[in-house]
Structure formats: C-alpha cells, structure tokens
C-alpha cells in the first residue's frame, strides 16, 4: 500500500532537521533514535565553531519545533532492525528497548537519589559516572529519566520504585517491536569518534592524560563531569602544557581513509577553551595540513594570533606515558625544521576522526561505501543526511538535511 510518510533514522541535528523540514510542509515523519534523548553529538558539545555559542542555541529551537508539530513522531531507545519493500511502500521494523520510566516522570530526580549503583556515563564518554536511574543529560529531550534495570539488584529496584511519588517507574516495561509503513527513509545515522584503542602508536586509549576531542568537549562543558573545569583525568590537575594531535586516525589508510573535515576547527576551538581558562597555558597543535576552509580561515587567523598557541607541522606518531608524573610524551618531527624531538605535555588531546555509525554494518537495500558512508542511490527511497553521508560540520549537516528532506518528499509526493 502506498504511503507518503517519511522515516528518519537518527535523531541528531541532521535527523531532526530533515524531519522538521518534511513535517513543516505537511508530511508525517517518524524519528527513530538509538539514545534515550534527541540531539546526538551536538548535545555533547561545549560550543559550536566558529561563533562559540552553546549547543542549546539551535537545539532548543529544534526541540520547540518538534513539540509544536503534531506531524513529528519520535521514538527514543529505538533501533531499525529491518527495512523491506520499495520506494513509496516500505515496511520498517523498529525494536524499542525499555526505558522503565513512563511519561508520568517529572524529572524530579528522586529515583536517581534512591539508586546506589553507579555506571560509567555514556554521555560523558566515560569521563564520569552516572546512577543506574539517571537523566541522560541536563538538556535531555524528552526530559525523562531512564533506568538501567539490569544493573540493579531486586532491593535497589524496589527502593527506586518506591522513591517515585508519581508512579513513573515501570519495572515491567519490556522490549517491543513495532512496524511502520513509510514511503521514504532518511538515513541520518551520524558518526562516532574513532576508537582510540585502535591508535596503537598513540597510546591505544590506555594513557590517562591522552583524551579524545569529544572527551575534551565534555570536560569543557558546564554540564560535564568537571562542571566545565578543564582538569586532566589522572590527578585533576590544571594542565599547563596541552597538545593537540591532528589526524588521529583520519587521512590514514590504516584507519579512516578520509579527512574528517571538522577536527582542525575543533582543535582550534578547543584551544580557546584552554586559553580562556588558563591564561598562562601553552598550547601546541601538531598537524599535517591545517584545513580551515572558506570563512573558517578567519577563525584560524584569530585563534592563532595568540602567542601561547603554537602550530607545528608534523604528525605525532608516538605517545608514551611519563611514568612518574602521568604526563604524556609525544614524539614528532617538525617537518619545517627537520628536528625530531620528544615533548612532554600535561594533557594531550587526540583529534580523533569521524567514523560513520554505519561503518561495517549492512542494511538491505542501502548502499554503504567501504568507509561506511551512505550513498544515496537515485531511484530508491533511501536518502542520506548529515554525517551519515560525509564528514560535515553542524551547519553543513543542516544543509544536507534539508536537501535530504526534499529528496524524500520527491519520493513520496502524490502517493
């Protein structure tokens, strides 16, 4: 049966945008999001570049548009498991994981206080802990708690249930499967930070004071594990010497065989996080080529005018831990001077690249290239949006999201 509604896989910035653009011209849309909240990677940021405004600016407007538009339906903790059919008539199977907290939740936080089990916080990329009953983040949409039931014992669950005066804790919530009939599918599955464990010469994620750029966002964010203070993980000391290692996994055929596009700007941006908090800190960015396209060049010029910011052309190819202090020692050849040296830093940030979330996955009917990016094939109702399509910044993600919405509409229009 022909259907003119649209499925959007992924509720990050591009997914939300695609959904809203289609909904606001009258199409029914379904967003399927794996996390318990919408907003994706953007929600984890401290600031956007180049204007350095917080991500709530932008996300808040999008959430408001979702609330006000009855054509937008969304599922969180949901995953698409199967897509069958043809353009104009797809049947999609969605698996819903139990949240154990129903819509009566007022986000009062009593359940989290009652919970005793602590787990590494996914939202903070393992830098902090969260309770078994938790609010995914301070800006969560939907604003509703989540309970990781399998991590708790019977007594604890009973206490958590008893703590909720609204009757919002639902211990009987179970995994469900639903079927959606749609005419087109927008893949806005986004990206994940490249796994540091695979960067063996850069410490394989085992050196305490070597963190990823996304972890740096969480350290700098006011809603992060340190309340926005940038402290190094090993001893919570204020870093005085910080290095950024560009192309950590990107532009490398042994890892990600493409430029992740955002990391140079992200590191320049993060350099400002450090410099505004620590006026005496020295920051060094090690790069192969500093890629700040278009108007971003202005941002680069502004940031690099700082005399405490040093740019060194040369890729860091080895990092080891300084045993006594926990410092990180990076080895690099400065390709301009031809000097190879070991440099000690309090904190090292790996500008890990963007790996498409679908890397290694196979979805029937969907074209995924060898790097994991979705390639929209003409004639199918499958369209890629945002970083599922190619590495992009937030602004360009939104642009591709609008384009994807239009393509999806072209598939379903008139059915």
């Amino acid at each position, binding site marked *: 049966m022909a259907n003119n509604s649209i499925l959007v896989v992924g509720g990050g910035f591009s997914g939300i945008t695609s959904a809203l653009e289609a909904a606001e011209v009258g199409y029914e849309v379904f967003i399927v999001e794996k996390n318990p909240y919408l907003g994706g990677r953007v929600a984890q940021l401290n600031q956007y570049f180049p204007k350095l405004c917080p991500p709530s600016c932008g996300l808040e407007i999008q959430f408001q548009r979702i609330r006000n538009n009855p054509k937008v339906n969304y599922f969180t903790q949901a995953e698409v498991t199967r897509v069958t059919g043809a353009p104009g008539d797809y049947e999609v199977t969605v698996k819903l994981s139990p949240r154990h907290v129903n819509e009566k939740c007022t986000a009062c936080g009593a359940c989290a206080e009652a919970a005793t089990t602590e787990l590494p916080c996914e939202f903070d990329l393992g830098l902090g802990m969260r309770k078994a009953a938790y609010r995914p983040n301070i800006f969560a949409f939907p604003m509703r708690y989540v309970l990781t039931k399998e991590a708790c014992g019977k007594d604890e669950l009973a206490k958590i249930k008893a703590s909720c005066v609204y009757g919002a804790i639902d211990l009987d919530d179970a995994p469900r499967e639903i079927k959606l009939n749609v005419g087109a599918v927008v893949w806005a599955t986004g990206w994940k930070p490249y796994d540091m464990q695979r960067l063996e010469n850069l410490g394989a994620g085992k050196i305490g004071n070597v963190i990823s750029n996304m972890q740096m966002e969480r350290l700098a964010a006011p809603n992060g594990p340190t309340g926005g203070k940038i402290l190094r993980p090993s001893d919570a000391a204020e870093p005085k010497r910080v290095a950024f290692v560009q192309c950590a996994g990107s532009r490398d055929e042994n890892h990600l065989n493409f430029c992740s596009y955002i990391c140079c700007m992200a590191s320049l941006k993060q350099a400002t996080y450090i410099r505004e908090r620590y006026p005496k800190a020295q920051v060094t960015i090690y790069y192969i080529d500093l890629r700040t396209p278009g108007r971003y060049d202005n941002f680069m010029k502004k940031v690099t005018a700082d005399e405490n910011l040093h740019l060194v052309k040369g890729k860091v*190819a080895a990092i080891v831990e300084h045993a006594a202090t926990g410092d990180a020692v990076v080895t690099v050849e400065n390709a301009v001077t*031809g000097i190879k040296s070991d440099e000690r830093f309090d904190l090292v940030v790996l500008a890990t690249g963007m790996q498409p979330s679908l890397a290694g996955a196979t979805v029937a009917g969907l074209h995924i290239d060898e790097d994991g990016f979705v390639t929209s094939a003409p004639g199918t109702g499958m369209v890629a949006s945002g970083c599922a399509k190619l590495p992009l910044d937030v602004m360009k993600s939104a642009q591709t999201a609008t384009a994807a919405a239009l393509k999806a509409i072209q598939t379903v229009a008139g059915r």
Partner: protein
Amino acid sequence: MAEPVRIQPDLKFVKELQDVGGESLKKCYQCATCSVACPLSPAENPYPRKEMLWAQWGLKDRLLNDIDVWLCHNCGTCSDLCPRGAKPGDLLGALRNMVYRKLVAPTVIGEWMSSSKHLPKLIAIPALLYLFIWWLSTGLTIPEGPIEYGKLFPGDFTIDPIFGAVFLFVCACFAGGVLKLVKSFQDLPQTFAVGVKAPPKPTLVACLIDVVKDEIATHAKFNQCGKDNSERFTGHLTLFYGFAALAIVTSVVAVAHWGGKILPFLTPMGHTPMHLTNPVKILANVGAVLLLTGLIYLTRRRMNADPAKSASNYYDWYLLGVIWAVALTGAFSELLRLAGIPTLAYPVYYLHLVAVFMLFAYLPWSKLGHLVYRTTALVYARYSGRLPLAHPEEKTFSV
C-alpha cells in the same frame, strides 16, 4: 628576504626510482610519521621523510649523495605506519638499488643487473665460459673413476685464475665505488652545533671497530629496527655467518694450496675433496647449513610480506635466487659426489660454478654490494658525526 631557490627537478630520475622499487613515492603527503616511526633515524634531519620529498621533487643530487639511505636497515615499520601507503621503506631500498646500478663502472653491468630482461646475458657469460672449459678438459663428457671435480675444471688452470681475476676485478670496482661514495658524502651539508663544545672527532679505526662490533658481528642495530624483527634478524644473521664460514673455508683452501707451492707442508690442508671429519670440511658443511637456514627464513618473510606495505623487487629476488642457486648446487655437488652418481654430480657442479660466478663477478652491482657500501657509509657516518659511536673511545685527560 631569503634568496629564491630554483629547484630543477629531474623527472627522468623520479621515473627511474619508481621503476627500481619506489613506485608509491608520489602518494606521500609529508606527515612525518615515518621519521618518528624509525627507531634508528637520528633526531636532526631524520630520514625518510626528507628523502620522500626529495624523491617527489626529483632532487637527484641530494638523493644520490645521501648517506642516510645506508643507515636504514629496512625493517619496514615506517611503511607499516604510513597513512598513505607511500612505502618510504621501499623508497630507501630503491635508492640503494640506484647506487648498485649507477655507482660503479662499467655501468652497463649495473644496467643488466637492474631488470630480469637482461638475466639471460648474465647467465650466459659464466655458462659459456665453463662449458668451454668442460669442452677443453674432457670434450663435454663425464669422466670415469671416482668423482673429482678437478677432472673437469682443473683448479690451478681454470677455477683459480678465473676467480682470482674476478676477485681482483671486483676489488678494483669496489675501491672505485668506495672512493666515489665517500666523496659524495663529503659534499653533504655540515651540521654545526653552535655554542656546544663538539666532542672530539673519533678516529677512522675506532669507527670501523664500532661498526664491526655494533653492526656487523652482532647485528645489534639491525635488531633494534622494527617491532617484530625476529625472522629477518635471525635469517640475516644466520646467512651472514654462513657466508663467513664459507669465506674462511675458501681462504684456508686457497692459502694452503697456493702457499703450499712455497711452504710444502701446507699443501695437504688445501687438498680437496676433504674427508668429512676434516675440521675445514666440517666448517664448510656448517656454513652450508647456516646458508640454507638463513635463506629459508628470509625467503619465507618475503613471501609472507603484505604487498600493500612492502613490495619485493628484482634486486631482492635476484640476490635471494642466486644465493639459493649457490647453496643448493653446492650442497648437491657434495651429496651427489658422496652418493657416487657422476652423471648428475658433474652437471650440478657445473651449475654451481655458474651460480658462484654470478654471485661474485656481479657483486658491486647487486644488492649484496651493501656489504661494502653500507659498511663504508656506516663508518663514515660515525666519522663525520652523523651517528654517535655506540661504544665511545675511552680517553682520559689529566688536567
């Protein structure tokens, strides 16, 4: 303002380099991972990033005068970590191949040694030579009686004069090559450490001793190279000592034989074939076993190497092939002689002579030339201060 530098790229040279093993050099984007990955590369002007750039730009003079290509022992760690598959390790190998090809006159041999299409000529020279001798001695027939290779190829009149001449020829070529190589190194830009009192310059002898100890006898530097080097290290060291043993055997036989003409008591020591319990024969057999063992290790490593990370080229296979031929024909000459099968033993010995000729007569233009060129470069690198001495001379100064 700085003087503008006019770069005159030699595009033909770039092409040649790509042909002798550096075909991926254009993929390099100068990230400098390789210089860091290399455990042997010095801190100042490390290799191989700068070589990659020079190769892309076709800076022939710099590359051909570059001592650093000899400091590399080709473990391939740089190529493993290279993000673009540019194979810097292979490029340094290609540059060494270029030296084998061009350094020593007559360069026509270098040309012939550079490609398999000239291999028939290289085989034909010794093949015809020894066939001619065989024709002279027995009219190409298999002699009766106990197997003695001297019946076909009388040592005093055929084997020794030919190999003696080859030996002198090779020595002369190497002498010219070493002088040329050192001269090219002297043209290198010098590094001066300002404000630092330079350590006293080591003597040439001290440098040579250091190289023999640290590089040749123990392969210590070779072993530092790379992450998992055991197969290469074991193979190369075994092969080296196999050759060393066989060189001693050959020297003993030659000295005893020719020395015996003056000091008759030496003669019996040089008489071949030797009994299997003769210490010299034991050493010879041990050498043969070492040679074969080393060959197995090194050949297996090349066969299993990931072509995306390191490609073996004609220079690699020529050398391995010839050493295999020498070792196998040598071993079978002995075994067939002991088994008493003359119809096979004599032809195999003939092939052995052809293979040995191919190993030694073309040595300055083959990869085995590194024996001399690398030693020269490693000594000079220490002498000029490019590399520190592993065991600095102990000097006491009284104040």
